[in-house]
């Protein structure tokens, strides 16, 4: 199992969609953190959002939806493999949102 803590391993302030948009984009997170974790062959990838100050739809869609798009044949496996967690109540809607983006991708 691989655990990714977005706040400590990436940033407390995730940004926009693409790297060209500015710092801490969803594309950057996908390439630097998510893709290597997926390629490492871990049975389960747990992404923890605790500690971030807020998340944008663009960031989540590009990071997680983008990952599914890049590995479309393995979509069912990806949906099963990636677990999203957060303990702070204000972050819980983002988990639902991210799951929806992964399903819709």
């Amino acid at each position, binding site marked *: 199992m691989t655990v990714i803590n977005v706040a400590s391993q990436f*940033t*407390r*302030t*995730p*940004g*926009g*969609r693409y790297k060209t*948009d*500015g*710092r*801490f*984009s969803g594309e950057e997170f996908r390439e630097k953190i998510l893709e290597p974790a997926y390629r490492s062959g871990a049975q389960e990838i747990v992404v923890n959002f605790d500690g*971030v*100050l*807020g*998340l*944008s*739809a*663009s*960031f989540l*869609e*590009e990071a997680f*939806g*983008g990952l599914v*798009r890049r590995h479309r044949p393995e979509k069912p496996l990806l949906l099963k493999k990636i677990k999203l967690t957060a303990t*702070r109540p*204000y972050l819980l809607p983002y988990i639902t949102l991210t799951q929806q*983006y992964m399903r*819709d*991708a």
Partner: protein
Amino acid sequence: MLGGRGDSCGIVDGMRKLSSKQRERQIRRLARARRRQAAKNARLAGTPQVILVDRWGELRRRIKETTPPKEAPLRVPIGGGRFRRTLLFYAPNAMNLERDYSSTMGFIYQLRRQAFELGNFSNFSRVNVIADLSTCASIDLPAALLTAAEFDRVRRVKNIRPQIYSDRWCDDVRDRMTELGLPDLVAATNKPRIPSHKLPDIEFVRFRSANEIDPVEAAALQSEIAAKAGIDDPATLSSLEPLIEAVSNAHQHAYPDDEGDCQLPFQRRWWAAGEFNRASNRLRFAVYDQGVGIPKTLPKKGYWGRFQSLLSDRNLELTDADLIAGALDVGRSATDLPGRGLGLDRIRKIAEQMPNGRLQIWSGGGLVRYAGKGSQQPADWQRVNLSAPFSGTLIEWQFDLAPSDSQ
């Protein structure tokens, strides 16, 4: 009063060389004609009048009254019968996009015209342009943000640092603009002579601007909003998401590369500011960009069909206000790439979730208002077709904080 300065303009009358007195008479004649024409145009268009000042003594006295001798850089007469052209235009009594849209935008139009459009005065460094705010008695947050962003654009495009003489401004306007950080935003060359006083019950979140989606800047803005509102944990405010979404929309969609018909120079920036009213426990913040506007950036294919069918289902005609409301309903914007435009939908979430939430979007030729479910107004879009186009997009959120939040 805010103006730029530079060298004088020469006047040429065909091949004939004129004496200084003749030249002065001719300039005054031209100025009178132009003033008459401007007054006529203003009457026809219902916009504030542009005054080409040729009563130099009067203007000099006025400038002397408002500035101390050591800090009097605006010396309009330059001697030897030569003088510098000065354009003076006034702010309306109430700068408020909601209550007096046409007058407020008239002032902004004048500034844009003087700075970027008028052929004779296109060289901004060669004329004095005085935007006189002393006639303005009140200014609200969206109008203040819009005005400050216009001044910022002028100084960036024309590469000038303006001077601000706020001595004769109304206290409320001076305090508000100074507390919001106008002198710092436009890199004014002088400091206000009269220090600003904190307005009772109002905490201001100073103007911020950047040309990229900078989440650290957005988080700092959220932290400042939370600090002003007395909230311990800024994350609970949930304002970062709509802020980043608005900034993302400004960055990704507002300034398309292929938009060739825009007359005004793009700066590809966004501006933001906020205020918290302790008395009403109400928070408001706004993000503004000077791009082409949401209606122009809607997709021309792909989701466009779905979008149109949604609008036709409601028997709507496609005004700009409908397009903005429709874009937020459909949740799609400029590009047809998967997942794009999701942010527009998220922008209204905070207005839905927070007590007495309200969202207003001015863009293109339309204004849409959305009142959340907790609000006294119905939770639906109110569409307004603007009397004059609003170049760019301004998004403003307002909501009440629970008493426990702001302790």
